[in-house]
C-alpha cells in the first residue's frame, strides 16, 4: 500500500481531533456508516503519522550514516597514503597491473584480437576486455595449492554431561525448508500435523496506534456493539478482544494518573536491599537442582519438586571459637563493658567473673559450692541440659528457652553442665541474658530512682532462682509465680513479665525432647500456663522496650531481616557467626544480638498467641519447641511460590516414521525406563510412582510440598510435617529401593555385583563398600581402614569421570573418527556419549532432518529420552559404526540418570580408531551400516520381548 504522506494533516497521536467533543454530545446513536467513517479517518491519520515517523527515523539514520561513511572514506584514503609513503609501489603487483592497464588503454587503441594476442605473449600484465571473449583464457592464472578440506560437520558444543533440551531448540511444530542439493530447489519439509500447529498463532499484542484508534473511536461515538464490531473488523480482531483491550486501556489510564506521584519515591529505593530475602531465595528454590547440587542444572531443569530432607540439619556448632569475641563490635565485648558499668554495684565479684566470657574456671569452682537441695537436682538438670542442647539442635526457638534458665547464673547458685563444651556453648547465652538484665536495669534507672534499681536487682536474684526450680517441673510454676509476683509486683512488673515469658518457651523446649504425643495433663498445663501468660501480657508490655524494638526494626531492611532469619536457622543464636557470615558489612555482631533479643521476645509472644488459638483445635499436635521456629519458617515456606510442578507429560505413541537411531540393543522395545523421583508421603506402597513406572526408588525419592494456598492449612501442614518429617522420605527400608551392593573382593566388576548386574554404577551413598576416596587417590586418606582392605570400587567411572583421552581425527573409514590416545584393556571404560536429551517425538522430527544428511547422532537412551549429539556432545559422537567393532555402548544408571558409556570390547592399542556397533534396526539401517548377511537372521532376532534390555557385556 502506498503511503499517504501529507505532513500537514498529521496530528500528534495523543492529541484528540478538535471536533471530538462535539460529535460525542450531538449524537449518541450513530450509524455503522458513520462509525466506519470515523475509523477510516483515524486510520488515515495513523497511516500518515506512520509515514512521517518512518521518514523522520530514516532522516536521522541518514545523518548518522553520513558521518560514518565519511569516516570510512577517510580511513580508506589513509590506507592509500600510508601505503604509498612507506612501500615501494613497484613491488605491489596489484598497483603495477592497475597502472599497466591504464597505460595500455591510453597507449593502444587497437582491436580486440590484438589485445588477446598481446596478452598471450605477456601474461603477467593486465588485459583489457572489450567484448565477450572468455576471460578464462586471457591471463595465466595463479594456482592456489590444494588444501585438504575437512570432513563435513556441523558446529557443535562440547558437553561433559547430558543436557535436557530447552524449549526453543525444539523442531516440532516448526516449518523447515530444505533444498535439494542437486536441483538447488527448496523443498518444504513438514507434515500436516506441524502445519496445524502453525495455524494458531499466538495472540498479537495491540500496537500503540491500534490503541489510539480504539480509544479515539470509542471516545467519539461511545461504546456499543456496532462500534465494537466495526472496530474489530478494521483491526482484524474479534469484538471481545477489542472490548477487553479497551477496558484495560481505561484502567491503565487511571492507574497512570494515580501512581505518578508515588513512583518517583519508589524508584529511589535501593532495590537490592529492599528486596525480600524470600524473593531472592526464590531462585534458590527454583533454580537449584536437588540432585546435582548446582544452580541452573541443565539436566534436571528448573522448578523441581522440593524435597525436604528428613534429618533436620543441626544448627552450626563451632566449639572452638565460642568464647572469643568475634571483633570490635562483638556483643560479648559490648555486654561486658555495659554490665561492668551499670550492674556491677549490686553484684558480688564472683557473679561478675561468672558472667564474663572466660568464666569457666569460676563456674567450676562455684560448682563445688553447690548446696544440698541443688545437688539433688543436679542429675536431672544435667539431663535436661543435654536434652536442651538437643532441643536447640532441633529448632531455633529452643534458644530462647535456654535463655531464661541461665539467669540463674546471676544467682549465687550457678547452673553447671557436665562437659566443657557445653559451658562454652552456654556462656554466650548467659551473657545474653545478663545483657537483658542490664538493659532492664538501665531502663529502670532511667525511669525510676536508684533506690528502686537496687530492689530490682534483688528481684533479679530471687526471680532467677525460681525459674531454676520450675524449669523441670511445671508444678513449680505456681510457687514461683507467687514468689516473684507477690514480692515485687509493683516495682518490677516488667521483669516478672520477662522472666515468665522466657519460662514459657522453656517449657515448650523441654517437651520438644519428648517426641510422643503429650499426655493430656501436659496439654492442660500448657493451656493453663498460656492463659496465664495471656493474662499477664499487659504487664510486660513495657513502653520503653517496645520503643527500642521498634527503632531496631526500622533500621533493619527486609533483606537483612531475611538474612538474619536464615542465619538463625543455620547457626542458631550465635550472633557472631550470623554477623560474620551473612550480614558482613551490613550489621555488626552487636546489632545482630540486639535484634535477636528483640525478635526473640516478639516471637515468644507470637508463639504464645498462636498456641492459645491453636491448642483447642489441634491439641493432638505436640506444640513443642518448634513454635518460635515455625514463626520464621511459616513465612519462608509460604512465600516460596514455586512455579507449577512441571512434570513431563509424555505419551508414547508410535510415530509412523522412525528415524535411524543408535541403540545398545537390537530389540525393538525400549530398554530402560526413565527414573523420576516419586513423591510418596509415606513408605512407598502400591501407588508409588516409581513402582508403577517400573523403576526402583532412588535416594532422591521422597516427600514434596505442594503449593498450599490456605494460610492455616499451610501452618497445620507444616506442624505435622515437622513432627513427622522423618517418616515422609522414602526410607532406606523402602521395599522398592535399590539396595546397592556389599561387594568386598570383586571390585564390582562382574555380574556378581548386584549393581553391575543391574546396569548401574555403584553409589557411595547406597553401597556398603563403595566409597569415593579422596586425597592421594590410593584411598588411604578418606577411607576408614575397617571398611575392607584397599577395596576400590571399579564401577563408578562415569560418576567420577575416569575416562580415557579420546582424540578426534580423520577417520580411516569415512569422515571423522575417534581415536584412543593410550592403550587400554578389555572392558575398560573409555568415555561417555553425551548429548541433548530429547523426547522420542522430537527425535523423530530431528531424525528426518538428519537422515537427509545421512548422518545421525541420535542414541536411544530409555523409554522417555533419546540422546542427540548433533549440536551438543563430545568427541565420542564421531566414533564410527562397524559390524566388527572394538567398543560397545552400554546404558548405565548413574545416580538416578541414565547415561551412555562406551567400553572397550577388547584390548585397544594407543592410536587405534574406535568403532562400535550402532545397532540400527535392520530395516532402517543405511546401506553402509548393513551387515552382509543381515536380512534373514536379523528378523527372528528382533522379535519383541518384554524383558529389560539385555546386557552386551
Amino acid at each position: 500500500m502506498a503511503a499517504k504522506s501529507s505532513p500537514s494533516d498529521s496530528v500528534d497521536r495523543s492529541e484528540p481531533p478538535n471536533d471530538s467533543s462535539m460529535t460525542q454530545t450531538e449524537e449518541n446513536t450513530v450509524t455503522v456508516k458513520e462509525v466506519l467513517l470515523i475509523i477510516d479517518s483515524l486510520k488515515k491519520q495513523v497511516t500518515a503519522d506512520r509515514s512521517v515517523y518512518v521518514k523522520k527515523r530514516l532522516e536521522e539514520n541518514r545523518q548518522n550514516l553520513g558521518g560514518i561513511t565519511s569516516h570510512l572514506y577517510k580511513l580508506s584514503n589513509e590506507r592509500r597514503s600510508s601505503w604509498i609513503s612507506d612501500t615501494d609501489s613497484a613491488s605491489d603487483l596489484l598497483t603495477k597491473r592497475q597502472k599497466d592497464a591504464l597505460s595500455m588503454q591510453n597507449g593502444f587503441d587497437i582491436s580486440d584480437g590484438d589485445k588477446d594476442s598481446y596478452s598471450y605473449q605477456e601474461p603477467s600484465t593486465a588485459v583489457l576486455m572489450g567484448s565477450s571473449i572468455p576471460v578464462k583464457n586471457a591471463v595465466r592464472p595463479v594456482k592456489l595449492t590444494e588444501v585438504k578440506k575437512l570432513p563435513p560437520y556441523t558446529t557443535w558444543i562440547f558437553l561433559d554431561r547430558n543436557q535436557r533440551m530447552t524449549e526453543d531448540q525444539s523442531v516440532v511444530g516448526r516449518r523447515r525448508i530444505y533444498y535439494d542439493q542437486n536441483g538447488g530447489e527448496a523443498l518444504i519439509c513438514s507434515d500436516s500435523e506441524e502445519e496445524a500447529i502453525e495455524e494458531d498463532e499466538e495472540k498479537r499484542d495491540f500496537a500503540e496506534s491500534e490503541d489510539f484508534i480504539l480509544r479515539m473511536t470509542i471516545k467519539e461515538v461511545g461504546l456499543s456493539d456496532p462500534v465494537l464490531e466495526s472496530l474489530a473488523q478494521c483491526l482484524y480482531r474479534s469484538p471481545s478482544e477489542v472490548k477487553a483491550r479497551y477496558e484495560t486501556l481505561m484502567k491503565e489510564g487511571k492507574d497512570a494518573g494515580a501512581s505518578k506521584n508515588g513512583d518517583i519515591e519508589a524508584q529511589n529505593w535501593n532495590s537490592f536491599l529492599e528486596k525480600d530475602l524470600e524473593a531472592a531465595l526464590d531462585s534458590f528454590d527454583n533454580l537449584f537442582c536437588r540432585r546435582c547440587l548446582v544452580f541452573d542444572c541443565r539436566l534436571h531443569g528448573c522448578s523441581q519438586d522440593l524435597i525436604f530432607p528428613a534429618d533436620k540439619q543441626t544448627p552450626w556448632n563451632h566449639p572452638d571459637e565460642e568464647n572469643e569475641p568475634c571483633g570490635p563490635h562483638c556483643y560479648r565485648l559490648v555486654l561486658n563493658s555495659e554490665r561492668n558499668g551499670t550492674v556491677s554495684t549490686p553484684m558480688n565479684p564472683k557473679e561478675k567473673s561468672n558472667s564474663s566470657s572466660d568464666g569457666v574456671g569460676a563456674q567450676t569452682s562455684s560448682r563445688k559450692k553447690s548446696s544440698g537441695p541443688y545437688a539433688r537436682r543436679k542429675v536431672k538438670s544435667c539431663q535436661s541440659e543435654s536434652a536442651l542442647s538437643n532441643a536447640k539442635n532441633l529448632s531455633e526457638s529452643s534458644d530462647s528457652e535456654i535463655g531464661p534458665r541461665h539467669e540463674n547464673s546471676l544467682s549465687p547458685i550457678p547452673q553447671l553442665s557436665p562437659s566443657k563444651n557445653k559451658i562454652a556453648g552456654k556462656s554466650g547465652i548467659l551473657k545474653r541474658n545478663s545483657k537483658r538484665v542490664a538493659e532492664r536495669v538501665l531502663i529502670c534507672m532511667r525511669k525510676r530512682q536508684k533506690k528502686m534499681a537496687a530492689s530490682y536487682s534483688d528481684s533479679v536474684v530471687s526471680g532467677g532462682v525460681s525459674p531454676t526450680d520450675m524449669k523441670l517441673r511445671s508444678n513449680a510454676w505456681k510457687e514461683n509465680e507467687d514468689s516473684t509476683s507477690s514480692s515485687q509486683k509493683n516495682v518490677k512488673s516488667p521483669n516478672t513479665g520477662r522472666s515468665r515469658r522466657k519460662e514459657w518457651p522453656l517449657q515448650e523446649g523441654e517437651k520438644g525432647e519428648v517426641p510422643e504425643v503429650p499426655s493430656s495433663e501436659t496439654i492442660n498445663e500448657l493451656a493453663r500456663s498460656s492463659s496465664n501468660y495471656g493474662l499477664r501480657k499487659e504487664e510486660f508490655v513495657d513502653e520503653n522496650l517496645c520503643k527500642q524494638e521498634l527503632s531496631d526494626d526500622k533500621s533493619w531492611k527486609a533483606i537483612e531481616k531475611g538474612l538474619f532469619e536464615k542465619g538463625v536457622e543455620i547457626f542458631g543464636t550465635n550472633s557472631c557467626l550470623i554477623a560474620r557470615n551473612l550480614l558482613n558489612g551490613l550489621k555488626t555482631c552487636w546489632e545482630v544480638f540486639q535484634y535477636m533479643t528483640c525478635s526473640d521476645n516478639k516471637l515468644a509472644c507470637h508463639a504464645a498467641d498462636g498456641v492459645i488459638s491453636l491448642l483447642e483445635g489441634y491439641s493432638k499436635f505436640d506444640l513443642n519447641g518448634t513454635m518460635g521456629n515455625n514463626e520464621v519458617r511459616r513465612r519462608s515456606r509460604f512465600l516460596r511460590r514455586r512455579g507449577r510442578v512441571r512434570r513431563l507429560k509424555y505419551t508414547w505413541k508410535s510415530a509412523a516414521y522412525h528415524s535411524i537411531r543408535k541403540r545398545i540393543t537390537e530389540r525393538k522395545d525400549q530398554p530402560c525406563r526413565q527414573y523420576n523421583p516419586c513423591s510418596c508421603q509415606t513408605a512407598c506402597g502400591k501407588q508409588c510412582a516409581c513402582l508403577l513406572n517400573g523403576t526402583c526408588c532412588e535416594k532422591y525419592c521422597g516427600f514434596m510440598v505442594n503449593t498450599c494456598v490456605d494460610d492455616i492449612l499451610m501452618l497445620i501442614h507444616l506442624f505435622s510435617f515437622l513432627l513427622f518429617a522423618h517418616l515422609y522420605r522414602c526410607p532406606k527400608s523402602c521395599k522398592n529401593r535399590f539396595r546397592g551392593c556389599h561387594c568386598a573382593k570383586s571390585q564390582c566388576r562382574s555380574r556378581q555385583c548386584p549393581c553391575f548386574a543391574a546396569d548401574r554404577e555403584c553409589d557411595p551413598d547406597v553401597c556398603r563398600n563403595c566409597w569415593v576416596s579422596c586425597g592421594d587417590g590410593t584411598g588411604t586418606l578418606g577411607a576408614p581402614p575397617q571398611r575392607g582392605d584397599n577395596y576400590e570400587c571399579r564401577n563408578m567411572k562415569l560418576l567420577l569421570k575416569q575416562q580415557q583421552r579420546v582424540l578426534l581425527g580423520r577417520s580411516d573409514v569415512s569422515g571423522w573418527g575417534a581415536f584412543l590416545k593410550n592403550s587400554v584393556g578389555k572392558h575398560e571404560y573409555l568415555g561417555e556419549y553425551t548429548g541433548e536429551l530429547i523426547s522420542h517425538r522430537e527425535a523423530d522430527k530431528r531424525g528426518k532432518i538428519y537422515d537427509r544428511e545421512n548422518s545421525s547422532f541420535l542414541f536411544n537412551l530409555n523409554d522417555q529420552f533419546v540422546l542427540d549429539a548433533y549440536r551438543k556432545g563430545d568427541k565420542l559422537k564421531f566414533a564410527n559404526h562397524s559390524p566388527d567393532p572394538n567398543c560397545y555402548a552400554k546404558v548405565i544408571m548413574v545416580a538416578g540418570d541414565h547415561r551412555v558409556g562406551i567400553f572397550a570390547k577388547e584390548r585397544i592399542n594407543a592410536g587405534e580408531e574406535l568403532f562400535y556397533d550402532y545397532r540400527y534396526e535392520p530395516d532402517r539401517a543405511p546401506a553402509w551400516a548393513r551387515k552382509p548377511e543381515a536380512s534373514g537372521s536379523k528378523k527372528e532376532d528382533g522379535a519383541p520381548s518384554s524383558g529389560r534390555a539385555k546386557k552386551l557385556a
Partner: protein
Amino acid sequence: MAKTPIGLEPVVGSLASSKKREYRVTNRLQEGKRPLYAVVFNFIDSRYFNVFATVGGNRVTVYQCLEGGVIAVLQSYVDEDKDESFYTVSWACNVDGTPFVVAGGINGIIRVIDASNEKIHKSFVGHGDSINEIRTQPLKPSLIVSASKDESVRLWNVHSGICILIFAGAGGHRNEVLSVDFHPSDIHRIASCGMDNTVKIWSMKEFWTYVEKSFTWTDLPSKFPTKYVQFPVFLASVHSNYVDCNRWLGDFILSKSVDNEIVLWEPKMKEQSPGEGTADILQKYPVPECDIWFIKFSCDFHYNAAAIGNREGKIFVWELQSSPPVLIARLSHAQSKSPIRQTAMSFDGSTILSCCEDGTIWRWDAVPTN
C-alpha cells in the same frame, strides 16, 4: 506471517521508475561456463576503488573498471581442486595495508590471497562445511567474518591467521548461515541470517580482548583460545523463508528473503532482557521475480542506493534512504536472461556490475546528465 498491526505498516516503495538516473550496458564479459556467485568492489583502499573481484567455480579473478566501459583483467587465481566452487569473495587488507582478496566456497576453506604478491597468503581450515559469505570489518579491515553451512559464523584475523570467535551454539543458527555483515560503526556488532529464517544480531563486546589479542599473537594460530559466542543479543523473525542477504543501514537492517522484496527494519532491543526484542519494519523495496535464494544485493559506499538483480536478469536500483523509497532505475537488456546472483555498485554508484548464473559479467554505467 502475522498481519502487521495498523500503524506499524512499512512504507512500500513504488515500482514506477523515477528515472533519476539512467544506466546503459557498456561491457559484457564471459568469464567462464560456471556460474558466478559473487562480485565485489574494493572499498577498503581508495587506490583500488575501481578494482573489483569475482568468483565462480574454482576461480577468483580481479578486474579493473576503466574509462569508456573498459574492463581490464588484472589477476586470476585458480584453486587446484577442481571441485572447489567459490561462493563469496571480499576485500581485506593486512595491518600494513597490503590488499587481500578473501574467498570461500563449497570446500569450507577460506583462501586469503595476497593481491600485491599474487600469492596465497593463508588458507583457513576450520569450517565444517561450505562458506556462504565473507565480509570485512571496514574499521579494521584485517578482521573478516564468514558465514557457513555448518551453522556457525566465525571471526578471523587475516593478518595473523587466527580464528578468534565462533558465533554458534545454544542460541545460534539452526540451519545454514547465508549472510553476515559488520555494523558500519559499532565495531562489536554483526548481523547474520540464514536458512532458519531468522536474523540474529551478535555482540562481541565481552570478547573484544580476544580480538585485540589476535593481533599480537605470536604462537601457532591453532593454539589461540578461540571462544564460542553462544547467544545473540537480538533475534528477529522478519521473514518466513530463507534469509539470504542482510546488510546494516546505519542502525537499521536491510534483509531479503525469497519474497520479492528487500525489507528495511529497525531492531528494537529490550535493555533488560537481551536476546529479546521486536523488529519494526519501516520500509519495503519490492523486487519482482526475485524468489530464488542466494541472490544478494549491494550498496554504494555511502549507502545511497542498493542494486539487486532478479531471476530474469533484470536489475533494480533503489534509493535506500528516502521515504517512501524511490526506484532509481530498472535495468534490463535483451540478452541478460540468466539469474543475477550478485551485483556490485561502485563507490559513487555510477557503475553497476552484475554477475550471472551463466558466467557473464555485465557492466552498466550511468548516463551522465547534462
